[in-house]
């Protein structure tokens, strides 16, 4: 599965449009990590535990999007976009969406 955020794929031609595919996940904060983050707030800087948590969650959202594309018989997703929003105190939604297509290499 080719996943890009451009409208075309270099060296490939679009032969069929399969429609919009999406994947989302909502993650709650982990208490242990939250305490660590609270301590980190004293000096500021990167919160590594949260970076890892969100990286992992975003990957899951992307995997769900890719699974949906596979179901439609697509082999690529174009113009992928990501959004993050906090839906409640301590919960973040990660959303990925794109256009599923079938492509073939240009010979």
């Amino acid at each position: 599965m080719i996943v890009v955020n451009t409208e075309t794929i270099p060296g490939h031609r679009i032969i069929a449009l399969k429609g919009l595919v999406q994947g989302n996940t909502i993650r709650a904060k982990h208490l242990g990590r939250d305490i660590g983050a609270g301590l980190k707030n004293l000096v500021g800087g990167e919160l590594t535990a949260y970076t890892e948590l969100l990286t992992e969650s975003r990957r899951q959202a992307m995997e769900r999007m890719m699974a949906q594309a596979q179901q439609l018989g697509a082999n690529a997703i174009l113009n992928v976009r990501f959004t993050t929003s906090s839906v409640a105190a301590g919960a973040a939604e990660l959303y990925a969406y794109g256009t599923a297509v079938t492509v073939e290499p240009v010979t």
Partner: protein
Amino acid sequence: MNDTAGVVFLLLWMLVVIGLPIAFIITGRIREKNHFEDIARREAIHRNFPVIDLSLLPAGMTASRSTLVTGQVVIASDYLKNFFAQYRQIFGGEMKSYQTMMQRAKAEARLRMIEDARKLDAVAVINVRFETSQIGQARGKSAAMSEVLCYGTAVMP
């Protein structure tokens, strides 16, 4: 006897109330300075690597493969920055402390994306987008947390 105990207690109390915040400010500043130095060093390595936000290939470049690359970071301000920011909000103006925080986060996210692309032997990253979101106003007056995501399409020859 009672007096000395009182003086010792007062000194300890002052150490906690005044000393600790100062220690946190200094630690935060040193870490920020080190981070900016680290960013400058890594940026020098990737100076000639094309990273653009157009969805086309740089002139004279051909590619046969492409894939999504991402870089992300969650960054927090500290309680003291928040405290000073509250006073800044009375008079308005540029909020320097938050500005450097976001600058660090954006540079770090972009560098992570570039390093991700380089690992895949990419020749360029095109259509780069940044996305920032506030992910937590944890509890009450605690520090602001923001997530910065940088993503783009890495192209390989």
